[in-house]
């Protein structure tokens, strides 16, 4: 573990992650132009020209500002979806694995069914149902679209983390200390809270990081399909907006894509490090 902590890859990864979070939290207070401020005399400018660190897009919006503001939305959506999905999924998965029997059977089947539907198809369907008004001509508000995005991605994440929680609980609840706790007269809910959850949490955590990466990419894909946040504040919608300019001003989509890629890679790496630390700890047991 120490060798990992000292390696420059790990430090770089953590630094990147912190940077993105910094953008997400303090974005609006940074001395940057607003993301939708138009610079008429600087359309489709490549990076490091005319005072725009990452250039501008065809509408004159500063890309760097877009990234900073976009970080808010992308991270908000992914963190929330993973947190909610993880909590709900884990609660269901842990209970099912501890109780076993019919409840477990129903839960596993449900998980498997939802997991078999491709992420994007599922979220598109949910968005289509929840985010459109009866009159197709009236656009839905940004707030509502974001809410629906979060809900649909939460539903996608529930079985992913739920299955992990269930599998981990199955292996932990067979350990003799759980049997010992029952023989002492401990109530089931106390056993779950005090014994199962603390031991299962690390495994869920490790996968949760991977899930954040999954959701960031899912949100970007949905935006590309036009089902994401409409007014182009997220990284995905920046890509969507810039797709027409690939030939002449590729930087417009490359910049957000690079940010998405690096953020997902750093999430995956951190999740991997957590998993390895877990395995080491397990080996000691």
């Amino acid at each position, binding site marked *: 573990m120490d060798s990992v902590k000292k390696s420059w890859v790990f430090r770089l990864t953590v630094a990147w992650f912190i940077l993105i979070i910094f953008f997400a939290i303090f974005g609006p207070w940074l001395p940057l132009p607003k993301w939708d401020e138009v610079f008429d005399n600087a359309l489709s400018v490549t990076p490091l020209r005319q005072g725009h660190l990452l250039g501008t897009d065809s509408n004159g919006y500063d890309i760097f500002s877009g990234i900073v503001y976009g970080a808010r939305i992308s991270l908000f959506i992914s963190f929330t979806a993973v947190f909610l999905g993880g909590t709900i999924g884990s609660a269901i998965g842990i209970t099912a694995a501890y109780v076993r029997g019919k409840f477990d059977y129903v839960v596993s089947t449900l998980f498997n069914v939802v997991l078999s539907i491709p992420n994007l198809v599922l979220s598109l369907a949910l968005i289509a149902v929840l985010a459109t008004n009866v009159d197709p001509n009236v656009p839905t508000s940004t707030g509502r679209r974001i809410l629906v995005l979060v809900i649909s991605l939460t539903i996608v994440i529930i079985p992913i983390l739920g299955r992990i929680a269930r599998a981990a609980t199955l292996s932990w609840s067979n350990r003799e200390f759980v*049997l*010992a706790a029952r023989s*002492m*007269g*401990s109530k089931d809910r*106390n056993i779950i809270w005090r*014994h199962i959850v603390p031991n299962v949490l690390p495994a869920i955590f490790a996968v949760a990081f991977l899930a954040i990466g999954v959701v960031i990419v899912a949100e970007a894909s949905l935006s590309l399909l036009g089902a994401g946040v409409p007014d182009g504040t997220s990284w995905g919608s920046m890509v969507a907006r810039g797709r027409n300019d690939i030939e002449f001003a590729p930087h417009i989509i490359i910049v957000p894509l690079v940010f998405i890629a690096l953020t997902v890679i750093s999430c995956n790496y951190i999740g991997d490090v957590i998993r390895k630390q877990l395995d080491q700890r397990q080996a000691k047991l």
Partner: protein
Amino acid sequence: MLLPAWSRTMTTTASGNTAHLRPADQTLLQIQDLVVEFDLGGGRVVKAVSNVSLDLVEGETLSIVGESGCGKSTLGKAILQLPAPTSGSIVFQGTDITKLSKKDLRNVRPAMQMIFQDPVSSLDPRFPVSRAVEEPLKIWNRGNEAERSAKVDELLNSVGLDPALVRDRRPYEFSGGQCQRISIARALALEPKLLICDEPVSALDVSVQAQILNLLQDMKDAYGLTLIFISHDLSVVKAVSTRIMVMYLGKICEIATPDELYSRPLHHYTSALVGSVPVPDPERKVSANLLEGEPPSPLDPPSGCRFRTRCPAATELCASEEPMLRLAADGHYVACHHPRA
């Protein structure tokens, strides 16, 4: 998955296999006709324990020996209702605990505790030792925090561990023997009357076994415990028991005092078992009459006497009629149609 609840109300035909039981008012624990079966689905039922009756007098140590698959571990857990047996009665301190409600059963638990085979997995790897030993006290709200802490120290001392050194450490920092001591301390926290030890020394190194066995003996004297000692190791069991019960494929074969059982085994299985134990004496001839073959599957045990497929003295009677436990000598019972002379 156990058989459905309604089948438990079906009265099992009294097996009559109770010749060895003593009057109920003299015993701490009396089990009659205990059956534990597991339904694997598709009509396959594992008959782990079939019509076993036994009793315990306060202060004795009853050992249950047998090889893997004989049902001894299942029996131990069934006594604690973990999970509840398929049928049969378990009368503990005058009450049939199989008939209790969930709440009443919970209230009986402090009086019956268990220690397990794998010392390390018996403890939650995240709990420091003090928390693990304190847990039963917290569950039952015994005393305030200071009183509980003092009790934990007292318990750790009595099992031979220095509280100052072990309190804040985690199980993975200890050896198997030390973990087993911690488990024993935890089991004694509620001052139970009955302690069931499920293979407590099998996972331990040979030289540590002696330490733990001595400790159990000391604890038994100090706390006035009654022990059920489950093991596959005949030598270990000889040192600690008042009485020994031999099981094979879910049934009792023989019950006797240790000296009687090992010097005069009447059941053919017991004799094969005793004969197979390696003895550190090069002069002793390796036993010529080794047991042939493998134990049958508990899914489909042989009719009549379950040992008949490997028994040198089996006859047609053994296939058609199940032998009952009969008195052979003082305190010595055997379930065999043709016991050894």
